[in-house]
């Protein structure tokens, strides 16, 4: 289960609204490499993971991703608060506004809704952790792309924090993959799926 802590993992305080940037950053809420997909991926993969330390990494990174989801939601919310109708029209935010007003909804920057096909839970520890490593790098690239588009320091600070966390998570997933391999036959890591096959 989870307990809520009434604060963000890193503070978000944006005073200058910018609907165009909001629409771009929204992709890290519900886009292909966004935080909801990250959290659901790791929290779902735990159940078939046979090694305790790796379950710990999946649980704790999956939990931190929920805190990141909340931060991205706060960024988009503050970037779109107090917008005038003129600003909504001029920034191209009207296409989002017509369906969601100023509510936060998980979609990619291009409007594609979030769906579970954006991640896998394969039930094979090597496969799942290799996906997790790629997922962290894809999210890091997205944050790099966002940072090339954003100039406002109030927006850059939390985005830089999130980007750095992707790198730390990548490191921890690398160690988790090593832990899995240490349990397997080094002559052939793929001889069996430790989450499914009975070792002989």
């Amino acid at each position, binding site marked *: 289960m989870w307990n809520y802590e*009434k*604060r*963000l*993992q890193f*503070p978000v*305080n*944006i005073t200058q609204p910018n609907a165009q940037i909001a629409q771009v950053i929204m992709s890290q809420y519900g886009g292909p490499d966004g935080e909801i997909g990250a959290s659901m991926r790791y929290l779902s993969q735990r159940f078939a993971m046979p090694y305790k*330390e790796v379950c710990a990494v999946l649980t704790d990174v999956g939990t931190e991703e929920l805190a990141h989801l909340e931060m991205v939601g706060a960024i988009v919310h*503050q970037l779109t608060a107090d917008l005038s109708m003129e600003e909504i029209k001029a920034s191209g935010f009207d296409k989002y506004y017509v369906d969601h007003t100023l509510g936060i909804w998980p979609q990619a920057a291009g409007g594609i809704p979030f769906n579970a096909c954006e991640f896998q839970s394969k039930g094979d520890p090597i496969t799942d952790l290799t996906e997790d490593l790629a997922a962290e790098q894809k999210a890091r690239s997205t944050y790099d792309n966002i940072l090339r588009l954003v100039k406002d320091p109030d927006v850059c600070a939390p985005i830089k924090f999130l980007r750095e966390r992707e790198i730390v998570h990548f490191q*921890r997933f690398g160690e988790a993959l090593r832990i899995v391999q240490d349990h397997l036959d080094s002559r052939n890591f793929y001889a069996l799926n430790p989450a499914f096959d009975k070792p002989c």
Partner: protein
Amino acid sequence: MQAERKQLFDYINRISFSIDDLLLYLDTHPEDTEALAYMNELIPCREKALKEYQEKYMPLLIDGTDSENCWKWSTTPWPWERGYY
């Protein structure tokens, strides 16, 4: 008063983040005694700061404060609001 509150809130964020980061490290290095000692040092500092903040200002945890006359959890601001501390 407000500056003091913000300073304490920032401290809670910083020390909590140290714990978040160290937590992931300990998950894959559970027998690193130096990291363990650091974790055991951080946890009481966070607890102390949380206690002080919640007694003086508002709850950050559901069981963090006794609300005698009012359930402050639902009547104080939420973290996604601008200028939250």
